């Protein structure tokens, strides 16, 4: 079974369930012959339309997709706006009826979408338990034996489960008890959804209210552009190797320059320093009307690694340098010293033992 109506979904039927099982839950269900190819193609198109709003998407099954709007994308001011825009986009283009739910976990968002009366339901912070409490245990994503035991204990709703402490549930259900507690208290899985498509470059453009010509004005405008650009890079978990600037000048000419960074970066100060240093040697023929910046050759960015393991002296110096940063970040130095480990391994992480204070 590819998909089902909302009525069936509320009775526990889910997509990709065998027909026999679906009939068991809902004997009066009416089957409609699936056209798999057309269905898959349409769903791909729907996902492409959603990509205009956010790239952080996780399709669950045909007809259901989870979006990550932890940081509101684009021009949207609230979760309601994003959800309404999504609903409008899909219904206008594909004439499909859309239900959107917003919550702090996948489970909550999915349930909110099922319960939405006007197409969109946002569960604001603080309302999670109130919303979840009347939901029945049939909706819980747990093993059948756990659900059966809950029934034997007379627990019908998530509210009744949420009334128990974490300790009480884990002692009764083990690891599943923790999951039950988390879901019923509205603290389900919150891992961020990665980008569904690979991005090679990102752009930012700024149209100046008044043409700018002085170094100070150019610097301020560039900083504003880079702020947005770096925020997006951080959001994507990327760093750029190249930066290209294009200035649209008042005399209808263009100035463009490309920079190759020594190491991939997502720091606006570093980019600004590099651009301003290059502009020092350039005389623009006219004030700037429009500025645009492109961050290219994007790579995944997992932070900067200190070269602590090159040599013994390098280690000591590196430790000294990095300790200030760690102290600022964690409030205290999390390492007392690094001791050489004579295990003979070639892996740098195993050659040293880090001693906590």
């Amino acid at each position: 079974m590819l998909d089902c109506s909302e009525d069936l979904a509320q009775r526990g039927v889910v997509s990709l369930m065998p027909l026999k099982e679906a009939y068991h839950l809902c004997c009066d269900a009416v089957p409609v012959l699936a056209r798999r190819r057309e269905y898959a193609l349409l769903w791909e198109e729907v996902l492409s339309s959603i990509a205009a709003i956010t790239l952080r998407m996780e399709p669950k099954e045909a007809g259901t997709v989870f979006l990550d709007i932890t940081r509101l994308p684009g021009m949207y001011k609230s979760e309601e706006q994003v959800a309404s825009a999504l609903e409008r986009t899909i219904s206008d283009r594909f004439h499909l009826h859309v239900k959107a739910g917003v919550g702090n976990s996948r489970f909550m968002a999915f349930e909110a979408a099922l319960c939405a009366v006007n197409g969109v339901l946002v569960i604001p912070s603080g309302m999670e338990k109130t919303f979840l409490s009347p939901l029945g245990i049939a909706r819980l994503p747990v093993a059948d034996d756990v659900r059966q035991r809950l029934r034997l204990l007379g627990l019908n709703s998530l509210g009744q489960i949420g009334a128990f402490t974490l300790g009480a549930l884990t002692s009764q259900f083990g690891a599943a008890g923790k999951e039950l507690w988390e879901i019923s208290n509205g603290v389900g899985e919150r891992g961020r959804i990665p980008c569904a498509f690979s991005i090679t470059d990102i752009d930012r453009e700024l149209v100046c209210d008044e043409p700018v010509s002085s170094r100070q004005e150019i610097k301020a405008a560039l900083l504003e552009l880079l702020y947005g650009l770096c925020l997006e890079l951080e959001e994507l978990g990327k760093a750029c190797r190249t930066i290209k600037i294009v200035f649209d000048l008042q005399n209808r000419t263009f100035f463009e320059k490309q920079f190759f960074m020594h190491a991939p970066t997502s720091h606006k100060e570093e980019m600004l320093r590099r651009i301003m240093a290059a502009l020092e040697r350039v005389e623009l023929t006219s004030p700037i009307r429009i500025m645009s910046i492109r961050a290219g050759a994007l790579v995944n960015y997992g932070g900067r690694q200190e070269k602590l393991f090159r040599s013994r002296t390098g280690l000591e110096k590196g430790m000294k340098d990095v300790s200030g940063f760690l102290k600022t970040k964690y409030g205290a130095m999390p390492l007392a010293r690094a001791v050489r480990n004579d295990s003979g391994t070639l892996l740098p992480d195993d050659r040293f033992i880090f001693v906590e204070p």
Partner: protein
Amino acid sequence: MKASPFEPERIEVTAVNDLPVWVTFKKKRQKVRQIVNLWRVDDTWWQKPVARMYYALEFESGSRITVFQDLPGGAWYRQNWTV
């Protein structure tokens, strides 16, 4: 006798076009300023069907409350965490 914590608290609601306008609970009658949110829950609790229409309400006093109407019976209840 004290009610079970799993029993919902019955309240009186005056509705116009099925939307709550006045709510009486704890012997106090309050006028609804706006319906902040509404949603519907259709579920089955151990083979017992549950159909409820939920309303997150804001009173003119500024306080908020979540109430629901039991759809087959039409009675109104105040929502708490355990029902």
